[in-house]
């Protein structure tokens, strides 16, 4: 078993429920073939950097799953045959990234515990921290990484 990440682009001209159907279809396909879907991240409709099949917009979906290596072949074949799919890309999630994520998640658990303590003391402050969390994911990731770096330094 290995951790994979697949990003695919569905034709954005399709009605919303059709897109949902496609997402469901592929997540179920993973499950049926002995895989395990971890996350499904819908980025939504985005402008393509260049036209693909005369289309300017695409609906992006990023999926994380565990599966055997052989499965990827059959999975990509499905995409190839599906005309609603404009593009797809499957990558192996490197072990280093998995380690880093596990570490960040552990750190977040600690900070969450601290947050709940804050909420009990000062509800107004808790609101401001919530707003911070809404910022783009990349920024928060960087922050946590910085925090992680600081923490490790202090530990040493």
């Amino acid at each position, binding site marked *: 078993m290995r951790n994979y990440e697949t*990003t695919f*682009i569905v034709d954005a001209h399709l009605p919303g429920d059709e897109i949902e159907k496609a997402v469901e279809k592929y997540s179920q396909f993973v499950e049926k073939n002995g895989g395990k879907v971890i996350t499904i991240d819908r980025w939504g409709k*985005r402008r*393509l*950097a*260049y036209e*693909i099949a005369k289309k300017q917009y*695409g609906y*992006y979906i*990023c999926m994380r799953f565990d599966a055997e290596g052989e499965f990827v072949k059959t999975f990509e074949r499905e995409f190839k045959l599906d005309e609603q799919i*404009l*593009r797809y*890309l499957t*990558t192996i999630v*490197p072990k*280093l*990234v998995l380690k*880093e994520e596990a570490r960040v998640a552990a750190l977040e658990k600690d900070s969450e515990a601290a947050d709940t303590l804050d909420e009990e003391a000062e509800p107004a402050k808790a609101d401001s921290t919530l707003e911070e969390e809404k910022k783009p994911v*990349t920024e928060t990731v*960087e922050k946590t*990484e*910085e925090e992680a*770096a600081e923490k490790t330094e202090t530990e040493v």
Partner: protein
Amino acid sequence: MLKPRRKRICRFCENQVVQIDYKDPKKLTKFTTDVGKIIPRRTSGTCARHQRQLVQAIKRSRHLALIPYVSDIPR
């Protein structure tokens, strides 16, 4: 006389990036020219390891139409 050049430090090493993400077009476009070419290491100062990752990420990102292969109109 040669002007002493400022030493550039790899931006990814500075931020302790584990893996460069192909899903982040905003950051990747910083390392491409207006036309869409990948900026060489000697210009950007990126270290060998991160440049290899960066190239991989940019190419993946291009495939997914997140960043252009070529653009005549710089955005």
